[in-house]
């Protein structure tokens, strides 16, 4: 199969996960031309990472996943061991910038030209040592010497800088924000992230499939189900295994419970940031009830380690399913009431409306996915049908109705969460009353040399996991990709017309993951 008339052959990946086509570019020029064609056809840059394949006598491989209307095109480009460089893609997709820099820091393959500043490497290891190379060793004993970062300077009379972080003034992950302001007005925000970099990708190397699943579930704790599913789906594609129908629906049930839990928490926090303490306590109470039922039914408040390669690690009996339906009814009623209060609260709407706005054009330019993209009006949801795209099971039969809002501001991102809670509650009820009888977990015989890409619509956006197995069927390379990679730059744009005191609210309305993108 070919896309956009470009001369690269793609084959559909095995299995019943999200539709993914795999292809190999024969040259840098071919890859670049393909990227241009994707961009011209309103596609997205979904993920970019590198792999050391020198062990098998090859060089390095650059992996680029593009989001197209019908699914994902996963393109590989082999690079010679002696000179692993490729053309800068950030001029075509600005989202490539940080991904390319991270790939250079970790694998030592680089974009030619463009931004050469380190991203994840803050000085804890030397510039000529690359943790994801197979001959890198463990890499202990380096002097941890934090380096200065070359922030872009904003000139002009009256402009000054406010540096914030890495430790923030709340219960929140670390990162550094550099604001340029005139008076209260924000001229520019530049982020420096990577503080959460704990070397996850290196830890995957050499592990077995089950150990990998546990690790995948800890890339970003708030999205543990999304990651565990994306990882499982990648493994299933690599090993040509299909999980049983009941397992797929139970996965969907867990994913939607994860979505509701996060949306409830965010709506509470958004109310709090806009001085509505009442909203905070109401939503946090609902969230706590929700997590307690998780603990009761799944044995874990966030359902960690319940989605495994091949299927799921637990079953729900009829009484458990009944308690889910009952809870959905109660939460639905309460959230409806709270929505009315939020909608009619003048002070709150005053803070939300037009604050932190981005539009659909920008969302496209940044390759944004998920909630933040849908809040600008884009219909982009891996669970839902759209022109040219049929979602994988179990979504196709559930008929997910994607929620969108055109305003692109804090109000839109709040409204979207309300809408998505109602839709998830509907899906949960539907799943709970219609679970087919089948096995829970298919056997997964590790396929030597297999590779796969898993894509899951997490509560924040598109979570991808790419895997490569070695000759013994163990993990040779795993790359997890968080939607926050693309959304962090959106936050930089969103704050530009606003004032400093609105930043916490705008930031919360995106609620991005640091750990997920710092790896």
């Amino acid at each position: 199969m070919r896309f956009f008339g470009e001369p690269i052959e793609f084959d559909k990946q095995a299995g019943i996960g999200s539709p993914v086509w795999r292809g190999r570019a024969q040259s840098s020029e071919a890859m670049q031309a393909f990227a241009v064609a994707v961009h011209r056809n309103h596609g997205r840059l979904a993920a970019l990472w590198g792999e050391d394949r020198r062990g098998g006598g090859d060089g390095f491989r650059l992996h680029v996943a593009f989001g197209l209307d019908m699914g994902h095109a996963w393109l590989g480009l082999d690079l010679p061991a002696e000179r692993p460089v490729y053309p800068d893609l950030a001029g075509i997709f600005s989202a490539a910038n940080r991904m390319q820099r991270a790939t250079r820091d970790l694998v030592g393959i680089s974009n030619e030209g463009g931004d050469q500043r380190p991203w994840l490497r803050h000085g804890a290891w030397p510039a000529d040592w690359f943790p994801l190379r197979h001959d890198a060793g463990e890499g202990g004993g380096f002097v941890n010497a934090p380096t200065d970062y070359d922030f872009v300077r904003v000139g002009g009379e009256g402009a000054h800088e406010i540096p914030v972080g890495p430790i923030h003034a709340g219960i929140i992950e670390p990162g550094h924000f550099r604001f340029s302001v005139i008076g209260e007005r924000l001229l520019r925000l530049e982020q420096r992230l990577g503080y959460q970099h704990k070397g996850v990708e290196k830890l995957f190397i050499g592990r077995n499939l089950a150990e990998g699943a546990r690790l995948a579930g800890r890339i970003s704790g708030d999205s543990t189900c999304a990651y565990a599913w994306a990882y499982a789906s990648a493994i299933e594609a690599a090993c040509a295994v299909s999980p049983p129908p009941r397992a797929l629906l139970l996965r969907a049930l867990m994913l939607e419970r994860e979505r509701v839990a996060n949306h409830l928490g965010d709506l509470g926090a958004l109310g709090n940031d806009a001085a509505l303490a009442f909203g905070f306590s109401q939503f946090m109470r609902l969230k706590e009830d929700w997590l307690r039922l998780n603990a009761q039914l799944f044995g874990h408040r966030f359902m960690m380690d319940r989605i495994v390669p091949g299927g799921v690690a637990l079953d729900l009996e009829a009484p458990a399913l009944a308690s889910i339906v009952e809870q959905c009814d109660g939460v639905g009623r309460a959230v409806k009431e709270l929505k009315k209060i939020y909608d009619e609260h003048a002070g709150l709407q005053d803070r939300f409306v037009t604050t932190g706005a981005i539009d659909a054009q920008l969302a496209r330019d940044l390759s944004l996915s998920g909630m933040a993209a849908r809040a600008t009006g884009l219909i982009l949801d891996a669970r839902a049908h759209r022109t040219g795209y049929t979602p994988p099971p179990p979504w196709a039969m559930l008929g997910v109705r994607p929620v969108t809002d055109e305003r692109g501001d804090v109000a839109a991102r709040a409204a979207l969460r309300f809408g998505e809670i109602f839709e998830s509650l509907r899906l949960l009820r539907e799943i709970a009353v219609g679970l087919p009888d089948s096995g829970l977990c298919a056997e997964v015989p590790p396929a030597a040399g297999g590779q796969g890409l898993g894509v899951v619509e997490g509560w924040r956006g598109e979570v991808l996991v790419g895997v490569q197995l070695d000759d013994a069927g163990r993990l040779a390379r795993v790359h997890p990709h968080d939607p926050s990679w693309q959304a962090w730059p959106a936050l930089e744009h969103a704050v530009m017309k606003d004032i400093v005191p609105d930043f916490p609210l705008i930031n919360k309305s995106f609620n991005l993951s640091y750990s997920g993108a710092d790896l």
Partner: protein
Amino acid sequence: MIPMLRRILRTGIVSEPPPAAGAEGEMARLGEDIRRILGRALAIREVDAGSCNGCELEIHALNNPYYNIEGYGIKFVASPRHADMLLVTGPVTKNMEHALKVAWDCTPAPKLVVAVGDCGCGCGEIGGTFGTSYASCGAVENVIPVDVRVPGCPPTPTALLAGILAAVRRQK
């Protein structure tokens, strides 16, 4: 305003009896302990030094009406300079090692430190999920002195509360 009041009335007061011992007066005793030892409320500075953010979800939960941590005289503060206790999640990344040390230096005595989560404690089946590596210092105690460890992945709000209580008691 009216629907808001109606909702408040219907929800009532959901704070639960304290979890540490389950006994009725336990939480009141914690409040008393805190006031006696510190002469005021307990101020906690939370530092995420490299977690997967799962631990933060549960620390956040301490502020919900069920655990109502503020009602016990415990509050989260923005600066280590105003903190009696650092509540630290890990593993401590190399990229956060420096910032964590600075936060610890800035915290006035008694400088209680509670390490949170399997990662922060360096325990659990895989040595705390992330262990020590080129990018990770591992457990919090590898970087700053730790008074109390609260393992779990993530630890429940109940376990966190018990850990905070244990640290305050130890100080007595």
